């Protein structure tokens, strides 16, 4: 360690190697990922989200929703994400290519939201989500500052929340979502993993077929997956 410049060079090389390996390596693999064109549906997936939903993602990011919510569904045999109804397939890198700020999150104090608008049987609608943001729940904070409590002038606003009981606005007043609340909800409603990419289908379909509950999904996906087997393998590595 007596040789100063060599010591600093060693440090620098160590850092550059890890940067090249982790960041550039994954960029080389995924940086040019394109939407998947499906001949039978005559369309490419994922589709670009609307402008209002993109603005909503900024609201989601600046409020720090990712502190409690993830947006990544894991595969069926790895955790209970799919059993909990958060999605019917695992999230893949292609899901996020049009998102300027993907919100993968790292903590599940609250449920996963990757497929909020595609949940079956009952996905929430805009009115549900706005009310939830305004009223909160036992375990969810309220975001009243995203709403405006104002006097009704003339006709009631079309966007005003339809609240009843103790939550209702005082007489002559209405609760109107601000633009930020509406963008946030538009974003949440754009979270949908309905399209089943070839690389999202479970791996090792043939070997796993008929092996218990976790593989039920595999068997279902086996037929369409066969044609994309090679592509899938490339993506999963």
């Amino acid at each position, binding site marked *: *360690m*007596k040789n*100063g410049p060599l*010591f*600093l060079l*060693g*440090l*620098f090389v*160590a*850092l550059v190697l*890890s*940067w090249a*390996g*982790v*960041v550039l390596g*994954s*960029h080389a693999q*995924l*940086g040019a*990922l394109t939407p998947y064109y499906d001949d039978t549906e005559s369309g490419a997936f994922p589709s670009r989200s609307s402008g209002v939903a993109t603005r909503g993602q900024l609201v989601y*990011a*600046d*409020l*720090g*929703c*990712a*502190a*409690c919510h*993830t947006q990544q569904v*894991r595969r069926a045999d790895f*955790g*209970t994400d799919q*059993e*909990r109804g958060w999605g019917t397939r*695992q*999230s*893949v*890198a292609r*899901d*996020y*290519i049009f998102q300027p*700020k*993907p919100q*993968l*999150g*790292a903590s*599940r104090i*609250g*449920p996963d939201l990757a497929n909020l608008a595609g949940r079956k049987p009952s996905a929430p609608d805009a009115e549900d989500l706005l009310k939830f943001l305004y009223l*909160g*729940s*036992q*375990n*969810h*904070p*309220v*975001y*009243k*500052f995203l709403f405006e409590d104002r006097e009704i002038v003339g006709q009631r606003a079309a966007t005003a929340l339809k609240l009843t009981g103790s939550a209702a606005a005082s007489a002559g007043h209405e609760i109107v979502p601000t633009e930020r609340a509406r963008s946030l909800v538009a974003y949440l409603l754009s979270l949908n993993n309905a399209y089943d990419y070839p690389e999202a289908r479970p791996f090792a379909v043939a070997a796993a077929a008929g092996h218990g509950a976790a593989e039920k999904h595999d068997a279902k996906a086996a037929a369409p997956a066969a044609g994309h087997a090679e592509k899938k393998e490339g993506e999963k*590595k």
Partner: protein
Amino acid sequence: MTNAPTTAEVTAIDTQSRCPLLFLIGSGIVWLVVSGILALITSLQLQAPHFLTDCPWLTPGRAQALRETAFVYGWAANAGLAVALWVLARLGGEALRARNWLFFGALFWNLGVTVGLIGIATGDMTSFALLQLPGYVQPVMLFAYGAMAVSGVLAWTGRSTERTFAAQWYAVAALFLFPWLFSAAQIVLIWAPVRGTLQAIAAGWYAQGMWTLWLAPLALSGAYYIVPKVSGRVLPSYEFSSLGFWTLIFVGAWTGGRHLIGGPVPAWIATLAIAACALLIGHYFIVFLNLRIARCGRGTAMAFILFGLLAYVLGGMLDALTSFRTVALKTQFTLVAVAQQELALYGAASMMFLGAIYFLVPRLTGFAWASGGLISAHRFLTRLGLFLLLGGLAIGGWVQAGDLLNAKIAFADIAGHLKPWLLAVAAGHAVLLLGNLLFLVNFCRSACVCSTTAPATTLFRQPSTLEATAS
């Protein structure tokens, strides 16, 4: 009274470096208190979700980002730099040079943190863990850091002896690597963001790199200096220390994919991280081998450093264990991961910083700490607080992990099961905050004494054996 300087030890090296280093330490402690208040708010919000949520600046997400930022860029950065620069000056045998650069760098760094916190509170945070600082303050902080590092570089290049010591390697590595790490992360995350989930990969690389290449080396530089100094013994198996050092530097940042197991990223990212975590065990083993004599030392500084070392080694083992896919399946996304982060940032790094501060402040001021009672109280409260905090998070996280893996348990019930443990976490944060307030009072009193009185050097002679070895 412990850790008072001996006459032989109070030298021009320390007294001339006093002003900028005390400024760094003081601002670090203030940020520690600020982050403690924010941590208390965050833990109460987990307990009672409606607490303070009418205040847009303190939504749970923002409060957590504020807390992390104040802790890492406020407390750990300031305290760690003070320790590393002091070690470099001591082992270089010269007083710190470029002290004005250091002082103004520190000033702008702290201004950057302040503006960054205001930015986060008003909605400009990025969404990357441990890098939530708004994009516009990051270049300022990079330059401020560069200005502070000038002192360290000069202390390294202008050292009076050719031979170098492990404490210096760790200090120089941390000083030199952080700007590269920080700027590379800024480029791929803020200025020219990579696409989609690549952002999560790059953010993971930064977060792990910041821990393994910056905060851990800063903490270890203090420990490698102080442990032999106070225990009065030569470090055992010292010849392995360079292997331990280079293992950390070469392997550390590869652990970035630890939190992305099972996520929408290529599987090799996680596999590499698992292998890297296993390799790092070698580093933790060597650190333990070298610094195990910390248990022989007495005094406040050594008590904190010993705690930090044990937490550091334990944390490394737990990182390796929880990176295995079968374990990660349980612990991922739960409070166990938070517990590991607290164990590393608070239990390991901060405790070593605190120990080093207890050691170096009397040497900078020329006086013993103002109050021995406050030291004992701080030591007790910090241990108690960490015990409550880490215990609550770990047990709560384990309960949460079991519940999350059972799809029949509804989310509302999981929150219910967590409540008692989250109460322990909140209590832990409250105790830590109290302890840190006492520490701040003690520091202010000690620093004021030195500014009003001429240093007396006849105090508290320690046995001359304590002067042995190492430097």
